[in-house]
């Protein structure tokens, strides 16, 4: 059985046995390499787009909120305006239906209250209407149709 010669535990550095040669300076040659920045541009574009997109989204969201806020304000102002108009109409109706005003208008039209002897009450069949002791609420469905807000 042949036995291979054992390799030295530590490899000598190449050329260690060789006499040192004077290092020959070779002129460096310029070459075109891939620029680092060119390698990172997709990231930059992506980041820019992301940040830009986020900014636009934030601005859009803010604008939406502001728009809704303005719309809310407008609606509230409109609501107040309508409520005021409703109150004025309610007042107008109340003024126009006041018995005194109706009597005045009737008088202007030449109407007059009849003397009491000219009025005859005719008996009607059936029970009396509008019994004053009724516990029925004066408004339909138990609520006032003209209740204040």
């Amino acid at each position, binding site marked *: 059985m042949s036995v291979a010669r054992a390799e030295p535990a530590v490899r000598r550095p190449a050329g260690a046995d060789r006499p040192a040669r004077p290092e020959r300076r070779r002129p460096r040659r310029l070459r075109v390499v891939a620029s680092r920045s060119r390698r990172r541009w997709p990231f930059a574009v992506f980041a820019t787009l992301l940040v830009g997109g986020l900014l636009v989204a934030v601005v859009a969201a803010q604008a939406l909120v502001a728009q809704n806020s303005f719309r809310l304000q407008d609606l509230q102002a409109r609501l107040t305006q309508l409520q005021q108009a409703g109150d004025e109409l309610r007042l107008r109706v109340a003024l126009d239906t006041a018995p*005194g005003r109706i009597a005045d208008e009737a008088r202007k039209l030449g109407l007059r209250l009849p003397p009491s002897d000219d009025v005859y009450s005719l008996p009607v069949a059936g029970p009396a209407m509008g019994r004053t002791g009724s516990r029925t609420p004066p*408004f339909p469905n138990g609520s006032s149709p003209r209740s204040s807000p």
Partner: protein
Amino acid sequence: MTGRANGRRRPPTRRRSTRPPGGRLVVVLVILVLGFAGILVRLFVLQVAQASSLQSLARSQRLHHIPLPATRGTIYDRQGRELAMSVPAKAVFVDPSLVTDPGSEAEAIARVLGLEQADVYADVTRTTVDGHANRFAYIAHGVLLGQAAELQKLHLDGVGFQDESRRLYPQQDVAAQVLGVVGMDGTGLEGLEYQYQPLLAGRPGDEAVQEDVNGTLIPQAGQSVTPPVAGSNLVLTIDSDIQYRAQLALAQDVRRNHAHGGTIIVMDPHSGQVLAMASYPTFNPNTFGSFPSEDRENRAVTASYEPGSVNKVIGAAAALETKSVSVNDRFTVPDAMQIYDHVFHDAEPHPTRIMNLADILAYSSNIGMIEIAENRLTPGLLSSYLHSFGLGARTGVGFPGEASGILPPAGTWSGTSVPTIAIGQGVAVTPLQMACVYATVANGGVWVQPSLVRGTVDASGTYRPAASPATRRVISASTASQLTRMLAYAVDVGTGQQAQIPGFWVAGKTGTARIPLPQGGGYYTDRYEASFIGFAPAASPAIEVAVVIDAPKTVFGGIAAAPLFQEVERFALARMHVPPASRLPVPTHLVPTG
């Protein structure tokens, strides 16, 4: 390689110069420690010790509270028509120091608001006591929004506007004395506006906003809003048509009889609900400041008077209920009678007559009623029936300033008290108390507490009826029925004939009472309270009307008050769709005998 290796040593002087001395380090350390300790102490003071006070100080500087006034509730009549309502309005004010042309501004403001130009000019040129221009003066309150907008368009220098609400009474003087008035600050001052102030006023809200040092609103800062709760609405028992007609007729009656004033009450005798209540003279609550306070008084509830002959129904009720007198008993009735030192008279001289109780009521005989009270009733019995019918005590209607009347305790009565009180003198009642007496008869002998409020409608629109009125039986149904027939007889043939209504059977009683002198010690010789209280249809009473006319020239209740009763009763019956009820047969004992 070290210096030692090089065989050289670093010069000692150089080593000393690069290492700071221990003393300096200690000093710097102490300074830093003290500095940080100071900061920590200050932090502790600010963040812990004074934290709450500084927080509240900052909050008070930053937060601004805006009160949100609650809308005052509306007052409706029984049909849901507005009697009192609040509408948004503006107060117009001026900063006189900013006014450049007072003359033209005053002219423009006066023209738009309908004010006196001189008054407005005084406001826009108002100065302080030391002669400088004033900085604030109100020109008008309660300006409606349309007028305010017209004024705003003029862009007048120094003129500003402030939100407020205005209480309006669209039906003018209808039920004015019942409704009362509201002051400049929106608080009820009189009448139902005062009585139901907590209910009508609601609860004001609050808006807390944050402002910067210049008072500019910080929009992003949190705002807390406590919304106001609107006041509840009142639904009255008043019917504005009947109320208007009653007021109109009352005013005409007072003028026709040259009286000082008058009061009228229309009510449902079964439920005690007041359908109309008015006094004359009256006032317009929209301009209440220009009327004397007496005109604003609801004299139906707050004023007492001696009722006179309408009070005889109580003595008659006591006599019938205790069976001290039967309907067939006959009395010999002269026209005058002396009791102790006092001589009582009938209204007019007449020969001695034979009368029964129905006749005594129908012809309103003082002497007949005195005979019954003196001979068949005791002071205690008469007093107990007067109390049972509600005299001497408030009715419970709850109206502010309600009078209880005057009913002396029976123990203090003199020898002439029984005859005096039996004919309605020597006691004082309110018109409402007396209306309740006749409502008791019409209601089959059951006294019902009168009411002015039918229910409430809260801010959510839910209607809540008022609590059922208190009731008590005073006389039996049969006694009430007998009295009703006697009262109908009084209208058919007696002193109340002017109260007759074609097609209806009317029951009622006249009253003519002397008016006591204000300083006491006697009565006017030429002034009387004329009254009539009755109801219809007598067989099935639906509407009761009580009328009191103060010091009419025509003197008698049958002349001054009965026609007014007839007019208003007739209108109310038609308004409430009450059909005529057939007459009950008149018993033979009710045929006049004298």
